[in-house]
């Protein structure tokens, strides 16, 4: 976003984006958290999160998140992959590690790979009973893979 030439998106679109992006992210998180019981889950939440980024990219350009939103230096382009793509690469790597790691944790406890369990935390203040599903960890892994993967694709292709 350089000097506000008319080719750019207008302030109207930018302002709406600033309002809509948090809304999308909240929705995404809601879908992630409720996925086990209601429509949603790691994948949908992840894609929705990625679309929030996509919207930002489209309206503000690729560097905006890096330079303005996160207030970091501009990428020194050492060819593709850019820093952003590299970081998203790490994100989906970590996502995979979370998903697989959770499965392996079950093995450590003597169950087959990817065995999931549900625990009910009882007698809590405010919440009384809280259901904690190990599957959420898996879903979280899915979420990170999707977010990281899609951001990589968007940033790499967008940079073309």
């Amino acid at each position, binding site marked *: 976003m350089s000097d506000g030439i008319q080719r750019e998106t207008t302030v109207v679109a930018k302002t709406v984006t600033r309002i809509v992006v948090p809304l999308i992210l909240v929705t995404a998180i809601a879908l992630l958290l409720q996925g086990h019981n209601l429509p949603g889950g790691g994948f949908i939440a992840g894609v929705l999160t990625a679309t929030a980024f996509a919207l930002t990219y489209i309206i503000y350009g690729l560097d905006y998140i890096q330079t303005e939103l996160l207030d970091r230096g501009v990428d020194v382009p050492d060819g593709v992959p850019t820093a952003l793509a590299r970081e998203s690469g790490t994100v989906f790597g970590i996502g995979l590690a979370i998903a697989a790691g959770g499965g392996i944790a079950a093995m450590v406890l003597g169950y087959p790979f990817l065995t*999931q369990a549900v625990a009910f935390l009882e007698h809590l203040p405010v919440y009384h009973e809280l259901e904690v599903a190990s599957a959420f960890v898996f879903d979280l892994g899915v979420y990170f893979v999707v977010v990281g993967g899609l951001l990589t694709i968007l940033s790499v292709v967008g940079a073309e």
Partner: protein
Amino acid sequence: MQPNQTVLLAVLALPFLGAAVTPLVYRALGERTAYFAAAIAGGCLLLIASQASTHGSVTLPWIPSLGVSLSLYVDGLALLIGFLASGVGVLIFTYSGGYMHDEPGQMKYYATLQAFMGSMLGVAFAADLVALFLFWELTSVASFLLIGHYRSEESSKYAARKSMLITVAGGLFMLIGFLVLHGVAADAIGTATFRLVGSENSMLAHADEIQEALRSAGLLVPVLLLIGIGAAAKSAQVPLHIWLPNAMEAPTPVSAFLHSATMVKAGVYLVGRFRPLLLTDEWMILFATLGLVTMTVTAMLAIAASDIKELLAYSTASHLGLIVAGYGLSNVYGAETGAFHIVNHALFKAALFLVAGIVAHEAGTRAIDELGGLRHDLPVTAAVTVVAALGMAGVPPFNGFYSKELLFEATYEVALHDGGVWWLLPVVAVFGSVFTFLYSIRFLMLFFGEKPHELGEVHSPPAIMLAPPVVLGVLAGVVGLGGVTSTFGVHLTPLTDFVTRVVESSVAHGGGHEIHFGYHLPTKLKPAVVMSAITIGVGLVAYPFFDHLRDGVRTLRSVPLLSPNFYYDTGTEALDETEFVTTHLQTGLLRTYATALVLAVSAMTLGAYAAAGANLPAFTGVGLALPLVLVLLVAIVGAFAVTGAPSHVAGVLTLSILGFMVAIFYILASAPDLALTQLVVETLVLVLFLLVLDKLPAFYGEPSRLRSARDGLVSVVVGATVFTTVLLSTKATPNDVIAEFLAKRAGVPSEHGTYLLDWGGGGNIVNVILVDFRAFDTMGEISVVAMAALSVVTILAMRERGEVQ
């Protein structure tokens, strides 16, 4: 006496070990590696000699579960080939020490040649068909490498490939023959065995049963043909002889070896070995015809030769024809012919090849027309040639005469016994022999007559090159003399006894009478004598017209359709240049590929429905909620519009209609997760499309009407397949569908403790399936997503730095 297992194994192992260490030896000894190899061959010879009095088999397990063993068998025939391979081997290696001086690739040469010898020894002693095949193919491989020794010469490469193609392919025919025998043995003997000889359960021990079983299965002729093709390919029988003349591209010692004691002898060995198993009328028709035709045709071709090695090569084929013809004939003379001529041919042919090598080496040319009068410069060589060439010609009292007499006798007996067309046998035998006589004399005449002026000074060969042919010449001479002396009662007993044993190997077991092989000059006017006389007489009369005959044969040979080479060459050339596959099938066009794919899928699927007699349900109306119908209608309209989209953007946007409609379909089908996923994915794909479309050209021209119509037809077929599939699969109503369990177990039960393991614990059954019941699928799914991202990075990154691998 039973043979010694260790010794036999040593015989086989020694050459291969020798080959294996040759690289080291060569580093130490250099060109003198020849003598190392000769020592190996000598060692083999001695070891074989130590087993000369034995008879029987030894067995080494190899692949018990397949019934394959490394069993070895010693009898006359095995010993004969063993002696030839190792004995001639000694001479060949020795000779090579002189001949290969300063030649390139000697290390490889000696290693391969030893392996070649070892393979031949393996062929000789193998008693198991698989083991036999093993060594059989190894001789082909080794000879391939040896023939291609001069690897940069086009002719060498051509010759090597030709021999490989013909002999290895022939071997495969033979292998099938073996397998049929193996399978039939199961009926005939009770066990499916690969054991040919040397045990109670061997095929030879049940020859009659096997013949019977083959006959009743209608497989006798096929087996004969299969094994015959294998043998014919190896021993250069017409029309598979064509590789042999080209094989002269090999260094001359190799040619000598290959033509006398190895390779080609494997073929006749096989015929001799299988003779007792398969000797029937069919056998006789096949092999006698094959042998005599080969003998005649190749003898004529030898006359047309312009190169001394070529002449000898055709001659080899011709003599192998003689041996095969002998083994082909059912009487005992036939077996004797085969056995004895193997010996005789080995001696004179090896000698002649080595002579040819000396001539080529010292005179610098192998062209027949350029050579003559060499006796002055090469007196010893000339002497050897006299003995060997006259033996080859079948002139008494030289060695070849006796075996040829046996052939004449055998053919005559058969004709007398069976009459009719069988009278052709003696006629053809004589006819072919005339040509043998002619080219033999022609070869001999290299040493006589005037020495052409163009031929410069011809030096004497080094002793190391002279000794081996002399040894062979002397041996041939001794065999010939043996005939003379035995005429007067002094028999060359070791030889005749040995040949008797060889003959026994090829005579049906339980045939009744004992075999006593003997040979001598004719003392009575038997038909065979007359035939010999005719041969020599006609030959003498015809010799002055040799050049005319030669030109005549050359004219005949030049008719392409008469020449097997023509078929081979056009065949391989056509093969090497087949463009059909790449021009018509692998066109590089996706549409060709995709059309084939979808049509094949449709054909298979519809074919299967038809074959299984699947019935389509009867049409009973629409019965779908109106909104759903509308949504599907929009989807179809959208999809139709995509096919006619005027631009990429229009198409992408139109495609989104389909995406939206599918999402509504999912909503109306009570699949909220799907609807959400579908739409978020749809949107991202749209974004990606737009990201990419910008960089692409906008529009491509309309396809031709014809092409559209054809593609439309293909599409209709696909549509019909899917239509049928949907109808048939929605009709099905199996019991106990697993989803019922998943739906039951996904949630949280009303009563539960602190932990839940055997319940999904989530209200969203779909999600529970994804993260619990089938989390493994999801693991794979996210791997794909991760890889998709990696792929994008990779494609675009490699573009910049990956141009150079």
